[in-house]
């Protein structure tokens, strides 16, 4: 079917345009405020790409070098900007390559809309070229998905897709659009989705629950706050800070809650979980009231559930009713958006301080500092440590950078030591643990926060899973700073092999290429650091660079990340060595 529309004529808000489905998709995206999408073209999505070409002045399409990278870039963009990330791919392998990013966004509650092309309606089920059942495949890893087979469905379904992706507990939505629906014409009219009758995104806070929570908090002698990404997604950073300060309660964060509260805040006591800080883990089993805010008691946070905070009354502030009592039974569940519930709670909280209790955290920190942190950050042994590199980045960034991490030892070390002043600054793959996440996510993070430094800290393993995205960085002139902490090992797996498999290093030894040459092959400035005396200067040079910069740091080969809660152990059995 011929499409006679041209780029400058229709406006997204104009009524009753007779346009193709493909053009309607662009208008829907514009109407949703999308000005940036990541993707990769192919046969079944070509009509949409043809429209993208015409609309390139209003909608920037970034060509990643793999569809998985498009999803991670969209995630990075969404996490840093709070907007919905958009990724696009063709049918078949293009669509299946999105699955890892969808699963990652699902478990980490990242708002994302993925659009895939599909073979024409009359070919569905015929095993046509590049046909795959992406609806069936993506169902368990999407908040919602839908296959559009008629052009007339496009406006309402895309409106619903964006509404679902961003509302309530956010998540990924996949819309599969058959090729005939892209070619066919429709009478286009766009109305934003304001609700879906079967879907209640934000439960109304219950006044009784808030009252009970306040009572427990006010009576507590050793209260402890653990906050997660729900604070960031719910824009509740101010309310969290106010609660912490008014109540004087020490607060720790999950890996995805990181950056919601200033790292240097006196009541910020660090990270909970497997490689979190000593105090917050041990004292989880000594607090009398545990106040969980926007977190989901992941097994990496709780360790063995049978001995997790059994002595404590548990208050759970949560937007998703399915999270209540899922892993840890609660005494008081406060359903709702964190900003709303914390705002209702605040006036009922008594001003207080818990200096003796806070002192216990400080004492535990001193122990951890002596046994772990000092050696990580101010090592005296010759080998460079991951911790000192992160400390150097902190110094150079003034705690103002967006830090993107991949998965493994470098991720744990970076999240332990990176300092943040601003929320939405820690971008990492938490729940799914997706190696290969960081480099593409840093692309999205940079494009979502153009005025900020974006530093991707990556291990030598994960880096090579999406290394091809250096081309995307170069092509789009993105000043992403890339630090690869190279120990020539799949470090975290190696650490487990050392500790739990009698040092049988099965397939964790990496014989790596010359990363500097590779970066240079992509026309990216690159440098390698092997000696401590060169580190500070190299990091400064990287941070000062106006363009993308690659820094490889050769770190000690067999460094271990401590503290550590061994798998299956209790949080209070956390090991310092």
């Amino acid at each position: 079917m011929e499409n006679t529309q041209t780029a400058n004529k229709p406006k997204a808000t104009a009524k009753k345009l007779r346009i193709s489905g493909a053009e309607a998709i662009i208008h829907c995206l514009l109407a949703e405020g999308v000005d940036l999408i990541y993707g990769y073209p192919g046969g079944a999505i070509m009509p949409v790409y043809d429209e993208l070409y015409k609309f390139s002045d209003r909608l920037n399409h970034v060509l990643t070098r793999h569809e998985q990278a498009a999803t991670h870039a969209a995630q990075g963009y969404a996490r840093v900007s709070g907007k919905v990330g958009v990724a696009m791919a063709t049918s078949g392998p293009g669509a299946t390559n999105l699955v890892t990013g969808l699963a990652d966004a699902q478990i980490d509650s990242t708002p994302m809309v993925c659009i895939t092309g599909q073979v024409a309606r009359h070919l569905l089920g015929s095993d046509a070229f590049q046909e795959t059942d992406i609806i069936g495949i993506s169902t368990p890893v999407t908040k919602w998905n839908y296959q559009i087979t008629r052009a007339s469905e496009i406006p309402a379904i895309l409106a619903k897709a964006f509404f679902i992706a961003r509302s309530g507990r956010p998540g990924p939505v996949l819309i599969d659009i058959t090729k005939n629906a892209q070619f066919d014409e429709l009478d286009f009219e766009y109305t934003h989705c304001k609700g879906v009758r079967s879907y209640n995104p934000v439960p109304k806070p219950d006044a009784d629950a808030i009252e009970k929570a306040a009572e427990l908090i006010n009576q507590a002698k050793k209260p402890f706050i653990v906050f997660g990404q729900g604070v960031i997604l719910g824009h509740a950073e101010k309310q969290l800070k106010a609660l912490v300060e008014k109540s004087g309660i020490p607060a720790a964060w999950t890996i995805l809650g990181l950056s919601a509260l200033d790292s240097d805040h006196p009541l910020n006591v660090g990270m909970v979980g497997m490689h979190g800080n000593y105090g917050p883990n041990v004292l989880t089993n000594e607090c009398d009231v545990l106040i969980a805010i926007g977190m989901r008691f992941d097994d990496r946070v709780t360790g063995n559930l049978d001995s997790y905070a059994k002595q404590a009354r548990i208050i759970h502030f949560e937007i998703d009713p399915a999270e209540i009592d899922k892993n840890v039974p609660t005494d008081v569940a406060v359903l709702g958006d964190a900003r709303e519930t914390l705002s209702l709670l605040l006036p009922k909280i008594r001003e207080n301080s818990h200096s003796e209790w806070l002192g216990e955290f400080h004492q535990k920190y001193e122990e951890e500092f002596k046994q772990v942190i000092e050696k990580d950050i101010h090592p005296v042994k010759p080998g460079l440590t991951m911790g000192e590199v992160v400390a150097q980045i902190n110094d150079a960034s003034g705690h103002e950078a967006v830090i993107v991490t991949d998965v493994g030892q470098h991720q744990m070390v970076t999240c332990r030591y990176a300092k943040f002043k601003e929320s939405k600054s820690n971008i990492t793959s938490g729940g799914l643990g997706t190696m290969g996440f960081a480099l593409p996510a840093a692309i999205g993070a940079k494009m979502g926060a153009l005025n900020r430094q974006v530093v991707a800290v990556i291990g030598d393993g994960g880096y090579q899973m999406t290394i091809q995205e250096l081309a995307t960085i170069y092509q789009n002139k993105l000043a992403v700073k890339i630090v690869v902490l190279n120990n020539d090992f799949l470090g975290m797996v190696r650490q487990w092999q050392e500790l739990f498999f009698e040092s049988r290093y099965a397939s964790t030894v990496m014989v790596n290429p010359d990363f500097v040459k590779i970066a240079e092959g992509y026309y990216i400035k690159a440098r390698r650091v092997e000696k401590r005396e060169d580190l500070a200067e190299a990091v400064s040079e990287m941070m000062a660079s106006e363009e993308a910069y690659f820094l490889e740091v050769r770190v000690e080969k067999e460094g271990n990340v401590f503290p550590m809660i061994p798998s299956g152990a209790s949080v209070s059995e956390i090991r310092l060595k």
Partner: protein
Amino acid sequence: MEKSWFTISVYSENNVGLLNRISGIFLKRHINIESLNVSKSEIDEVSKFTIVVNTTESWTRRIVSQIEKQVEVIKAFYHTDEETIYQESALFKIASHLLFDERQIQNIIKESNSQIVTVSRDFFVLAKSGRRHEIDQMYFELEPFGIMQFVRSGRIAVTKSEMPITSLLEKFQH
């Protein structure tokens, strides 16, 4: 916690793919669906899934939360057998000559309160509605004579208590 029988009732929009989404929730947790029935409900354009599981109440509760979380699910409930009125249906296809040759079969039909749906030259079909054990009993009694085909439906159930779906939907409209 002990395993028990639970009937999960799901009111939902009638959409392609929702069955897959719901069954995936069981699959992910390695919990078997003992019986499944999908039909229209008392409300126009609202479907009803009736799912029977044999597991602990704590798993059932978590599964119901996950089901209810799905965008196109209006509301999900779970109930014990005592809280529901439930039935299954079965069809037995049996050779016609047995109806006349075996006096005992006529007794079974009478005593089991089943109906003859059809009789043809070669076979007749018996329909029986009731509890699982009643159908099992009838199967056990008919088996020695030869059953040509047998099929039993999933459980259908209504609850003794109210399921306030209409008011939920009305709330949305306001």
